[in-house]
């Protein structure tokens, strides 16, 4: 029996799952990411450092803030520039608002229909009116946060190498703090709703990788850690991780040298740094009985819902009572090299640039969360199919699609 899901719906970008079952055993399974390459690393060469954030934002329409922030941090390291405390705080606010917004769309619009056996959010209008209104309320506020500091929620304009070109007046920030307060209950309701979903019973303990910091729930920088003992600076990224080309996929695949697959993303973050979550998120997670470590990849959706509570509460706290100074950006161009790792909504994102003395890119490398999760997802798909091997064709296909969506892959990012 052959199952071909040629164009997986409700994910970002284009990918397929192809599998072959013979006499009750799985013969072959491939995750074929056929999203066409755009060659970002190729045409970033010969571009000036100050164009890079605007270019890499276009790698992804869901997490442009992550690509911009990671590139900016890598370029600032290459140029020997230290960003101000205000810039670091604002980048954190931008990242949190984008993580919440990405998780909201993924949970409500992409993942949720599966659990109600529906094709899309369009079929949910009549039965789930209050849920959709809740999604709207929350999404509007978090988009406003990104737009207030970035200019617009998608492909923001004010984030540049060196800091922010402009800052909003204090009264607008205060207004948004109030609006964030108003959606805190919506976030908790979202978590309750997600925790009640019938997740398939499927566990597999893999290596979870995230970045960590003693100061807070690390997003824009920290040391790379795993529960199996990885502990290293972001500059040492290549000493542990290895990227390879795959014959059946346009996306490259990253593994831990000598070990193999691992998992990044919301579930990995919770498994590694649950204690660093905002108290509101910890409390909400305890209320629904969520415990770490959690080895069910479907629970990545649950972890995302917990991060929604975290993101809204932390954003609100970061913005309350702060007074940002008027930015002044002075960059001295020089030769250099920089690597930066951040936590995109979907997990570890790495940008690496080599600049010449005129600040022009000579070499660029970008490794995305979906490239990090590629092998782990493929292996888990195989285990999942084995577990449900006696179900009918439609059921196996649906389970595969659900697992892919639970990882929340971004195929556009992964190929770039």
């Amino acid at each position: 029996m052959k199952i071909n899901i040629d164009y997986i719906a409700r994910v970002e970008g284009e990918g397929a799952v192809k599998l072959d079952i013979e006499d009750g055993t799985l013969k072959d399974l491939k995750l074929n990411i056929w999203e066409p390459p755009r060659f970002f690393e190729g045409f970033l060469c010969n571009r000036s450092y100050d164009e890079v954030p605007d270019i890499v934002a276009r790698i992804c329409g869901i997490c442009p803030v992550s690509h911009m922030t990671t590139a900016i941090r890598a370029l600032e390291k290459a140029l020997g520039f230290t960003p101000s405390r205000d810039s670091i705080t604002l980048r954190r606010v931008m990242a949190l608002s984008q993580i919440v917004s990405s998780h909201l769309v993924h949970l409500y619009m992409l993942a949720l229909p599966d659990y109600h056996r529906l094709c899309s959010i369009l079929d949910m209008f009549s039965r789930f009116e209050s849920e959709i209104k809740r999604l709207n309320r929350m999404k509007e506020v978090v988009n406003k946060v990104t737009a207030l500091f970035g200019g617009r929620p998608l492909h923001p304009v004010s984030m540049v190498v060196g800091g922010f070109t402009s800052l909003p007046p204090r009264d607008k920030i205060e207004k948004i703090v109030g609006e964030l307060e108003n959606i805190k209950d919506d976030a908790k309701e979202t978590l309750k709703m997600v925790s009640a979903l019938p997740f398939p019973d499927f566990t597999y303990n893999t290596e979870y990788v995230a970045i960590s910091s003693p100061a807070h729930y690390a997003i824009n920088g920290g040391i790379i850690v795993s529960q199996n003992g990885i502990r290293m600076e972001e500059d040492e990224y290549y000493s542990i991780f290895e990227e390879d080309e795959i014959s059946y996929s346009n996306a490259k695949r990253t593994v831990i040298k000598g070990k193999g697959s691992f998992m990044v993303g919301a579930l990995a973050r919770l498994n590694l740094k649950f204690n660093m979550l905002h108290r509101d998120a910890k409390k909400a997670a305890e209320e629904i009985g969520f415990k770490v470590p959690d080895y069910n990849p479907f629970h990545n959706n649950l972890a995302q819902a917990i991060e929604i509570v975290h993101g809204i509460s932390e954003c609100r706290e970061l913005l309350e009572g702060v007074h940002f100074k008027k930015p002044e950006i002075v960059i001295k161009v020089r030769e250099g090299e920089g690597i930066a790792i951040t936590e995109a909504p979907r997990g570890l994102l790495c940008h690496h640039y080599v600049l010449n003395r005129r600040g022009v890119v000579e070499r660029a490398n970008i490794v995305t969360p979906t490239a990090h999760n590629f092998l782990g997802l493929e292996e888990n798909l195989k285990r999942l199919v084995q577990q449900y091997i006696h179900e009918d064709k439609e059921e196996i296909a649906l389970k595969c699609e659900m697992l892919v969506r639970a990882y929340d892959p971004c195929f556009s990012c992964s190929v770039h």
Partner: protein
Amino acid sequence: MVYCFYKFILKMFHCPEEEEVVLKKKPRLGFFKYSCCAGCEFQFIYFQKYIIETLNNFEFVFCKMVTSGGTPEGPFDIALVEGTVTESWQADELKKIRERSTYLFAIGSCAINGGIPAIKSIHPELEVEKRVYHDLSAIHSIRPSAIDAYVHVDGFIMGCPPGERDLYEALTSVLSGKKPDFLEYSVCIECKLQGNICLLVAHNMPCMGPVTNAGCGALCPSYNRGCYSCWGPMRQANALALAKKFRSMGVSSEDIIRKFTLFGSVTTEFRKTAEFYED
């Protein structure tokens, strides 16, 4: 909102209420993604304030980010196409979509002017591709181009990400059966309306506003930075005159080429200007 607008039109022309029955037959919509960040589809399915109206007023025949199932075969009352054409199957499919669609709109800079993926077109293809893959045997990329290189396009919903005003205009036009009215002037007009001080004249900042199509509300100048033309060139913009102004301000030839090849590198307006400074 869309519905209210429609009711308003009916009222204006004294149409009887029964006419509303027409609305019950929802226009069939297809959304196609080629090589891009999927930001347009994302903007579309999350159409900010009008999401429920948008999703309720159209029949989603094909839109992979919203719904599983669906058919790319059509027919469509409205087809929206995002992304740059970078593989030959996309061009083949595009021609089929054109045949099966009443209206075909290009949405976003990639589909309209090649966008960021078309930066590749200013270099020899192999040179760029080799920097990314060692083994190119499974890579089948062609020179990036905008979709109107292959098919007739009925309207351009410009921007990166697409502007809400234009998206709203396109969708309501299809619902009410009128020709969409897109903006055909430069960012400078919007910048003046915002009351901004001109960055180009007063602050000597190389701003692409004078040659860039309006729609963003002069976002970058309002955030204290020069426009970088993410909306792409305004039709018949005198791009070379602006490039010469940049040169007189001390901007290097290399940087001028970069500015005119960031967005719209495959458009006549910007290509000609970049070529003027090459060599």
